[in-house]
């Protein structure tokens, strides 16, 4: 597969996963605007912004306490996270970049995938926050569904070649980083709150883990159990461990890259990230630090994958 094409589908996978993730966070959070307390609403916004490593438009301390203002500001914040072109992680920016990568790599994906994604793009292209604000959860839900559909269509129609692998590798690496960032945002902010359980139930919903948690632990929300489930449960698709394993599996399925050294390093990093969660997590005294190490490892993995398959030096590359 052409290296630039591999890079394109890899980024397509990453951007669409990000668009889905932010949409899903917003879908749940705008639902909370209806009946949650101001404290909870503010906590939710702060968590999202911290997870995205971004400050709200006027800085973190800008969020007011009055309820009416909170709702008005929610509009501004939702706009910043949804349609703001200058926010590289807004839903629109991620979807647009994912679609642009798909447009450039249309010959690497199926026609059905392209149509599905292009329709989602066209639907969103002419919208503004004011257009969706009457029922924002419906808009975010539809965006999530469209990206789910895209993934499902890819599953049903895409040839299981290198393009498929690189797309899934991108999605897996992005999922690890998004999940780790969100968990760290929750734990870091949670320490400052009086209510120790604040935000943990919504963390379960954000990771599609509410039902699994209830089945495993009952209805009482305990942060440590939630953390265990989200980080280390191999059966939860959105857990950090599942995503790290998915990345390692995709990498295993891709033939050795031209830069053998970088290739081996990438495989080691994927294995190491998995081992940290699998073996170090149960006994780790500082789990936040462990998650930070997993995050660094995944970021290194991203760079190493590109070194191995895309940006390799041509001197020692095999000729075919």
């Amino acid at each position, binding site marked *: 597969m052409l290296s630039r094409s591999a890079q394109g589908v890899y980024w397509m996978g990453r951007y669409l996963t990000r668009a889905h993730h932010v949409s899903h966070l917003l879908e749940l959070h705008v639902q909370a605007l209806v009946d949650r307390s101001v404290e909870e609403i503010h906590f939710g916004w702060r968590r999202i912004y911290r997870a995205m490593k971004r400050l709200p438009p006027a800085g973190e301390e800008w969020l007011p306490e009055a309820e009416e203002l909170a709702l008005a500001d929610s509009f501004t914040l939702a706009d910043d996270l949804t349609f703001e072109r200058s926010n590289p992680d807004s839903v629109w920016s991620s979807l647009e970049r994912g679609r642009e990568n798909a447009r*450039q790599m249309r010959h690497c994906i199926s026609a059905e995938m392209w149509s599905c994604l292009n329709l989602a793009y066209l639907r969103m292209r002419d919208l503004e926050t004011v257009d969706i604000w009457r029922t924002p959860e419906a808009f975010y839900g539809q965006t999530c569904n469209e990206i789910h559909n895209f993934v499902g269509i890819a599953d049903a129609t895409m040839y299981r070649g290198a393009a498929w692998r690189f797309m899934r590798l991108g999605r897996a690496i992005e999922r690890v980083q998004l999940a780790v960032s969100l968990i760290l945002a929750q734990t870091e902010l949670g320490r400052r709150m009086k209510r120790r359980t604040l935000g943990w139930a919504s963390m379960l919903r954000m990771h599609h883990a509410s039902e699994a948690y209830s089945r495993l632990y009952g209805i009482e929300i305990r942060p440590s159990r939630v953390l265990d489930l989200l980080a280390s449960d191999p059966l939860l698709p959105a857990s950090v461990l599942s995503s790290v394993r998915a990345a390692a599996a995709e990498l295993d399925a891709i033939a050795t890259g031209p830069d053998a050294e970088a290739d081996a390093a990438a495989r080691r990093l994927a294995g190491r990230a998995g081992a940290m969660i699998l073996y170090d997590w149960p006994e780790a005294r500082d789990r936040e630090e462990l998650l930070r190490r997993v995050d660094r490892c995944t970021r290194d993995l991203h760079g190493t994958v590109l070194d191995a398959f895309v940006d390799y030096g041509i001197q020692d590359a095999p000729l075919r």
Partner: protein
Amino acid sequence: MLPRRAWPGECLSAPGARRTSPTRGQLLDFDSYDHDPAIFDEMFVARGAPREHCRAVHEALRSVRRQELETIQERVTRSFSQEGITFTVYGDEEAEERTIPIDCVPRLLRLAEWRELEVGLVQRISALNLFLADVYGDCRIVRDGVIPIDVVFDCPQYRPEMRGVSVPNNAWVAVCGTDIVRTHEGFMVLEDNLRVPSGVSYMIANRKAVKAGLRRLFRTCRVQEVEHYGRLLRQTLTELAPGGRPDPSLALLTPGTWNSAFYEHMFLAQEIGAELVEGQDLLVNDGFVYMRTTAGLRRVDVIYRRVDDDFLDPLVFRRDSLLGVPGLLNAFKRGHVTLANAPGTGVADDKSVYAYVPDMVRYYLAEEPLLKNVDTRLCRRPEDLEYTLDNLEHLVVKRVGESGGHGMLVGPHSTPEERDEFRESLRAAPAEYISQPTLALSRSPCLVDGRAEPRHVDLRPFVLTGAQTRIVPGALCRVALRRGSLVVNSSQGGGGKDLWVVDL
């Protein structure tokens, strides 16, 4: 047996939906159709009298409700937008990706007429390929005085770097898009596009969209298929592999996503199973071309290049080009890679050289040209310049180096100021201009505001040459959508139509 008056309404309705009588509602208005006997009409011989092979379509159009046809039109247009079938307009950031407006009423051509065209096109491309081999070889045609030496060697598209080069199967032009117009005098070639002709993807997209809307009518008319173009192109490129290498590795070289025809590049790469590469993906090592893949460097045998000569190789042509590949021309000249079309083919579609194509046919093939040229005056000749200056308001004046409808004066539609401006330019650099009579291009009915209105059309069939010449029975049919306009270029308000070659 299919009903004679089968009409698309049947395929518009969802299964189980109540079907409305086609006679209810307002029908498509043909009564006010402006039939002008001075202009060849593709559908009508005279007012209200359709040509024999157009009867089924005319009958169907007359019996359909206007609203129904508009629904088809809307669906066709929407399908282009949804599938991202777009082109890019330079210097217009607001409309980076645009769809070409498509008229859902097809233009029809009898199969027998098509066959005549086809034979003429094969003859013409044969002569042009021989001409290219000659001007980069012995230059017999120049030495024998058939074409003046300055017309060839002063042409900016003549590439001295290509002298002495030979190409597989002598196919300098593997893909040609010939612009053809029709008048009461018959078909005429307006232009031979021999460098990087585009538009074939729209031919196929138009077909797909219009066929979906007019399914039964399509079958009734026994329309010839065009969708196998990709297979023929692949076959053609494979035949041009260096040294007849079996199962060659193909790549389509695109300038990138910002190129106006990027959609087409992507579409064709997919159709022919080639990698879609940019210059940065390729490198030349020891005279061979390789592309960077995730498994290392892979040799490329045939490059269907959609990058202009100037940008192909910064070591030979424009040094500031970032689109090309250093050393590519050297690899090509050594016969290690095939470039389709070969560099330097632009000399044969230069607007001045165009005037000599009929002479080329006679010279190389000893045959009379089957396809006519438009009478062309070369302003480099004093008598032609004088004639052009005296008759500006009746002529079309074209700058030889321009394309896409730019650098052109359509005399009858011009203002006195525009003519004065052109007069000055002509006097300053006469060799850069040609003039032709303003042709009454044929017209074809289009759906405009719920009515059938005539619009001028042209035709661009795509001619493929490998070990043999192949043409799919269809063409990009361009329409000047503005009333009275003769400019069909998409960048200047032109649109498209599906061309049906019908076996009726």
